[in-house]
């Protein structure tokens, strides 16, 4: 599920706290840039105008016992969510017992992805709104984090960056500031290479694995009994889920790119094991969406050097 990162509208998101208005209107600027990044920023003709940020605290109830998105009643039914990835595995043994897992299913948890996108998107929209409010053209050096508050079932999304104005530059398209994770020399190199940042792009994919008997046995060390061979084999259902969650995350971010490129991507995956074979796999993908605005010749071939120090 893509987030509104880069495509979100600042109009209608007038929900900033009063303190934010007072801070942004105080007449001085603040910046999270390091001194070298700050100097590089000025060298590029970018004037820092303020430290901008966005928060969103989300309560997610999708793993609770009463969740409506538990395993489907039939292996032939579509996934619990709305569309998306789904795959089913059938037990090769026939009826063994009522506890025997006769079928298994992997499916994309699109409601989880939507919740993540809503949290990230709301925080991002507030960041852009703050930047817009102080007349910024862009936001550089963006950092974001998602913090799980213990024992409360809630997650806080926090995004912040330094709003800048391009000296003599036109207002950004649609009045919406561009955003980037880059700052300082890395941003300068990007621009010199003929690219311009458009927006931070971030997405999350979630896949739930309901193991069938073979997956359960393999994941609890029962491969010797079932394979009859050397006792080592790949666990197809889990691999399928891991492959799918990464593919989905990349597809979602592709939808945000709209023909642009993703620079400096960070792909992180985590698996939360619920029981042998049953797990939730989540994958987040972040990066800066960049657009080529002019052709650039390759740099001269670098010369290897040895420093006498």
């Amino acid at each position, binding site marked *: 599920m893509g987030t509104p990162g880069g495509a979100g509208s600042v109009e209608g998101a007038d929900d900033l706290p009063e303190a934010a208005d007072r801070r942004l209107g105080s007449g001085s600027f603040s910046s999270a840039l390091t001194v070298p990044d700050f100097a590089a920023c000025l060298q590029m003709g970018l004037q820092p105008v303020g430290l901008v940020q966005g928060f969103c605290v989300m309560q997610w109830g999708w793993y609770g016992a009463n969740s409506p998105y538990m395993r489907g009643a039939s292996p032939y039914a579509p996934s619990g969510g709305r569309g998306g990835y789904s795959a089913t595995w059938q037990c090769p043994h026939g009826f063994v017992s009522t506890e025997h897992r006769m079928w298994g299913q992997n499916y994309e948890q699109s409601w989880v992805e939507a919740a993540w996108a809503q949290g990230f998107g709301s925080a991002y929209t507030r960041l852009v709104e703050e930047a817009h409010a102080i007349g910024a053209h862009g936001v550089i050096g963006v950092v974001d984090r998602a913090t799980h508050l213990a024992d409360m079932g809630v997650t806080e999304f926090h995004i912040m960056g330094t709003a800048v104005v391009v000296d003599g530059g036109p207002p950004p398209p649609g009045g919406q500031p561009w955003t980037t994770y880059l700052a300082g020399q890395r941003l300068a190199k990007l621009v010199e290479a003929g690219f*311009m940042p458009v927006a931070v792009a971030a997405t999350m994919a979630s896949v739930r694995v309901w193991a069938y008997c073979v997956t359960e046995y393999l*994941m609890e*060390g029962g491969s010797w009994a079932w394979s009859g061979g050397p006792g080592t084999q790949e*666990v197809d259902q889990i*691999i399928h889920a891991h492959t799918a969650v990464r593919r989905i995350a990349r597809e979602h971010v592709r939808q945000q790119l709209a023909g642009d490129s993703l620079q400096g991507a960070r792909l992180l995956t985590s698996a939360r094991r619920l029981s042998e074979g049953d797990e939730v796999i989540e994958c987040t993908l972040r990066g800066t969406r960049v657009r080529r605005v002019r052709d650039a010749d390759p740099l001269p071939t670098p010369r290897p050097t040895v420093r006498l120090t």
Partner: protein
Amino acid sequence: MSDRTSPSPPPSDLRAEMLEAAKALAGGATGTGRGATSDLSIDETLLLHAAGWEPVDLVCGVSVASVPYGVWNWGQGEIVSASESHNLAVSAAATRLREECAHAGGRGVVGVRVEIEVDPHHVDVELTGTAIRPLRASPGKGQAADPFVSDLSARDFTLLQSAGWAPVGLAFGAGFVYSPRRTAGTALRQSGQNVELTNFTEAMYSAREQAMERMQRSAIAMGGQGIVAVQVTEGPMGFARHAIRFAAWGTSVRLQGSSHQYVQPQVVLPLDDVVVAFEAESLRGQ
């Protein structure tokens, strides 16, 4: 590399370039075609561009291989099933990474991030990197019959290429071994003495050699002549302290021409002083 070095370009006007880029964005410039996705830094991207390559897509290869029940119980010698699981998972993940690269139209994958987790009942392997292709290569898919896979950074890849070598693939080898036991009598006799525990030495020596031998065998199998940037990890398993894992991997390389190309680095004598860190203790006169 040094022979083809052109003179440094005049310093660019960053301010003018930034302004020009902002105007182009405001002027409605749009994305063209299918953009690249990459986990390379901007430095690595520019370096690859200078060397004639460009990123295509972020690619992944994953595998999970089962470990049979009971293999971690105390025994002697190598834990064969665990070693087999490890090697199966790694080779399958690398194969999937190559397939994704070929599907994306890449000629190889650089900067592969290797993540291996050993669980009592399964070995999980995740490989993530950026598929690259020569500049101006046809964007058609599936053209690379046998893309290379490398965990070298773009910087190391470029340097390797300029020295006349090419990466072939990731060479892996692993071995698991039980910590050998001593008899009660032997333990008593050795108690309080400076003495080599020869059974430990032999078991661990052998396991290390096995892992590295498997790595070299896999390099030869994929047509490599050597391995660079070898990494070795070892240590007891958290869930079975009597079992020790040895794993070795690196990028298998092959000479492209008839001989190695000497890069002839330029010697540089920097005239800037090394920054001296401030020491808080100096305030106390110490």
